[in-house]
């Protein structure tokens, strides 16, 4: 057993030092009749080589994004992550350390979190950010609960452009907390009227931009309308790279900005782990969920960093905590921070420009394909296509031809009557050849 350093003679010596005869003497508190007798119905230990082979076989039964023209987005995006990022996050000192509860020997992690919070605040245009959430969807649910606490109201309005999974997570979480929701209809056209759904009981309105369907939304009037009724605007994004191209939600009056940070630094990994970003205004700081890292000084007066404001958290506040979150997405946040540092403002802007330009190219190319219509007037790197066949079938046909062409909306909203829509994303990883492959193959199957 390569992972277990104790030898049989160690074990014997240690039992003797403890003063018991057998290891089972240490398990006496387990009721006799409940103890597992012998082995479970599980395979025995296996060599590293065998485990690796078995897992490689499973991996080989999946089609990696890198290996085909790839346009799947809808909340998770295939971007290129520099090798430096993955190398650094595997440093033993980052990878195998715990939550920095002993700050004197955790300044590496803590300083990274401080850099992360600053980056998130700048990108979203907000005043403060926390040290990460699980992902964008759970961050959105936390934002709604926080808005309820801040406004002391219990009704959230969810716009129709919100990612259906995010909506479902909010529905589940907020519903189970016995708070109320107003769910607007799905909005593939990007023209919905959110404002008229806001009333004096509204705690917050939750709007995603770019929307699930790729539309860019003017948040400012929504923020103003919300504020006029004493409600908050929760702005959501699933593609953080967009924030380098479009006006940040903070500049448009958002009160809480939440979203998914996966695009920067983190691979697709079939949906997780990802990293939820959470930013808000300074005045709501003490209602914010999740860990935060703050600057302070040590006994010598040197600058240092600590986890702070823990009186909001469950360790101290227990049932009065702002959230139950404990473990978050530290290492994904580290990857985000390293990648964002490599990019810098200039690189982020360029990355966003390349994404947008390639998307425009796809849209222009699809104009020549009969049977497909792009619904978007504005977009960043994702658009909604209406096809004249069942979208799910089209996607399957394209997959068979080696093109992963996007997500049929019906996969996430099966009973919404949107069976002819595809959401397609285009990143810097999409080449002109990929676009051509998409267009020609689509023409074949339509």
């Amino acid at each position, binding site marked *: 057993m390569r*992972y*277990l*350093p*104790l*030898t049989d003679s160690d074990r014997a010596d240690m039992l003797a030092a403890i003063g018991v005869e057998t290891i089972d003497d240490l398990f006496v508190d*387990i009721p006799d009749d*409940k103890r597992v007798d012998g082995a479970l119905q599980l395979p025995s230990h*296996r060599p590293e080589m065998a*485990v690796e082979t078995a897992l490689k076989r*499973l991996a080989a039964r999946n*089609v990696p994004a890198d290996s085909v023209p790839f346009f799947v987005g809808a909340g998770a995006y295939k971007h290129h992550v520099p090798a*430096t990022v993955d190398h650094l996050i*595997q440093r033993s000192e*980052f990878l195998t*350390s*715990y*939550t*920095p509860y002993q*700050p*004197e020997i*955790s300044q590496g992690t803590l300083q*990274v979190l401080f850099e992360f*919070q*600053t980056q998130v605040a700048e990108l979203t245009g907000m005043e403060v950010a926390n040290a*990460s959430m*699980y992902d964008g969807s759970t961050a959105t649910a936390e934002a709604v609960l926080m808005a309820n606490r801040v406004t002391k109201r219990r009704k959230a309005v969810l716009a129709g452009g919100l990612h259906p999974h995010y909506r479902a997570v909010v*529905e*589940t979480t907020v519903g*189970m907390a016995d708070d109320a929701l107003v769910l607007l209809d799905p909005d593939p056209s990007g023209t919905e009227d959110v404002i008229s759904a806001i009333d004096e009981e509204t705690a917050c309105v939750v709007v995603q931009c770019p929307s699930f369907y790729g539309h860019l939304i003017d948040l400012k009037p929504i923020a103003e309308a919300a504020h006029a009724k004493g409600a908050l605007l929760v702005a959501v994004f699933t593609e953080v790279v967009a924030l*380098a191209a*479009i006006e940040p939600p903070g500049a448009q009056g958002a009160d809480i900005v939440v979203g998914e940070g996966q695009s920067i630094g983190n691979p697709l990994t*079939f949906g*997780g782990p990802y990293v939820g970003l959470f930013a808000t205004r300074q005045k709501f700081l003490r209602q914010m969920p999740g*860990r935060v*890292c*703050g*600057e*302070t000084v*040590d006994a010598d007066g*040197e600058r*240092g960093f600590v986890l702070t404001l823990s*009186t909001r958290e469950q*360790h101290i*506040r227990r049932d009065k905590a702002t959230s139950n979150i*404990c473990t978050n*997405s530290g290492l994904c946040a580290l990857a985000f921070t390293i990648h964002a*540092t*490599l*990019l*810098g*403002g*200039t690189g982020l*802007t360029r990355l966003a420009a390349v994404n*947008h330009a390639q998307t425009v190219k796809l849209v*222009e190319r699809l104009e020549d394909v009969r049977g497909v219509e792009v619904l978007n*007037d*504005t*977009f960043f790197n994702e658009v909604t296509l209406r096809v004249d066949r069942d979208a799910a079938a089209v996607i399957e046909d394209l*997959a068979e031809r080696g093109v992963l062409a996007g997500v049929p909306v019906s996969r996430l909203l*099966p009973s919404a009557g949107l069976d002819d829509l595809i959401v397609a994303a285009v990143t810097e990883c999409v080449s002109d050849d990929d676009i051509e492959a998409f267009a020609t193959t689509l023409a074949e199957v339509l």
Partner: protein
Amino acid sequence: IEEPLIFEIGRSETTGVDLPEPAPVKSRLGKHARSNPVALPGLTEPETMRHYVRLSRQNYAIDLGIYPLGSCTMKHNPRLNEKAARLPGFADIHPLQPASTVEGAVELMAELSRWLLEMTGMSAVALSPKAGAHGELCGMMAIKAALAARGETRTKVLVPESAHGTNPATAALLGYKVEPIPAREDGTVDVAAVRERLSEDVAAIMLTNPNTCGLFERDIVEIAEAVHEVGAYFYGDGANFNAIMGKVRPGDLGIDAMHINLHKTFSTPHGGGGPGAGPVVLSDKLAPYAPLPYLRTEDGKPVLVEDPGETETGAKPFGRLTAFHGQMGMYVRALAYMMSHGGDGLRQAAEDAVLSANYLKARLGDVMTVAYPERPAMHEVLFSDAFLEGTGVTTLDFAKAMIDEGFHPMTMYFPLVVHGAMLIEPTESESRASLDLFAATLRDLAMAAGRGETDRFAGTPRFAPRRRLDETRAARSPSLKWTKPEPRPIEPAEAAE
């Protein structure tokens, strides 16, 4: 050596990523284009490498030494698992690709589920929770949904005082009133104390077993029976599952829902705070309420059910906990870990973890105060700070002095049921030599404290990257992000130059 912040050394115009020139197209951003470019500093690749390598060296890590945080199970993180998680077939697949292009991934989830179910003796598993606390939420939602399906709205959840803070926080999040259960003198919960508080208003009890005092709850079967008698459910907090893998199955004890911290028990690395994964196993009674997505077998092949319209008869998913399907990256690592150990190795790991904790208890019992000496410890052993009383050495001093000896301190001041708690969990990954060195150091410190050598403790740590940090100051006027320093006011003399 001090390492500045990226904001102090980077420049917005610098970038460490070469990107192609964007094609010259007509923008479709409309009026939404950013008015000011992002003002974030960049570093070139060599600068970035050096900055983060240097920062990393200010961290303690398992790879550097024992990390005896109680209830955290900081064990060896095999690199095979990291390698496997990075195979393109796992790391580079999208959660919404067509199902036909991710069959291996779904099979892996099914395989992981089989291991979890066999080890826990339960009926169903919800894989998607993203961490332990998220798993608690999942389990308690299933309970709430099951009660709702019975047309019941119960209002209370029982939680022992020794519980992790996440337990009461989770119950409260779902609108339950939290009622504490006191522990017996010996650190465990008495079935009688539970019975006293049970009523038709009680939705569930949340119990950690082994508990955070490091003890196995001896009355657990009776407690489960009592809970079930009033129609309530038994939520088991699985944080300490490492002690009992292969020794006893929670399902056999009457537990209805329990989360498994893959980042503790199954060694997915903690990464300085996450990510984790908290799959929840469910009893027969709760299985129908498992959230979306869940796995079903169709024609002998596992299939992910994402669509509430498609659920088979009997399934009543309470909703969705997260976008997509959960922490695939952690599933790969955990399964690699399980397969490497096998059933036999996991059981041995639990035994070694328990053996090591009891060994430390034996080695330290005469110089430190074992909180509950009567019962065998499980995989962690709890001390109180009674042995420091009157020495002039505070509990915090004691912890910080350990840093100067090259060790990460144990969990301090938790659980709250013991004064000046010190909770030590060595895990099965420590060699005999490592345990002996750790014990010898603690003995030495405890004896020094006993002799009143306060100088050895005051002002520690002295040899860490930082000396003791002012946490009060941080909380009083929080500074949570870097802000450009004010330009230094020009002195009159300089201005005159």
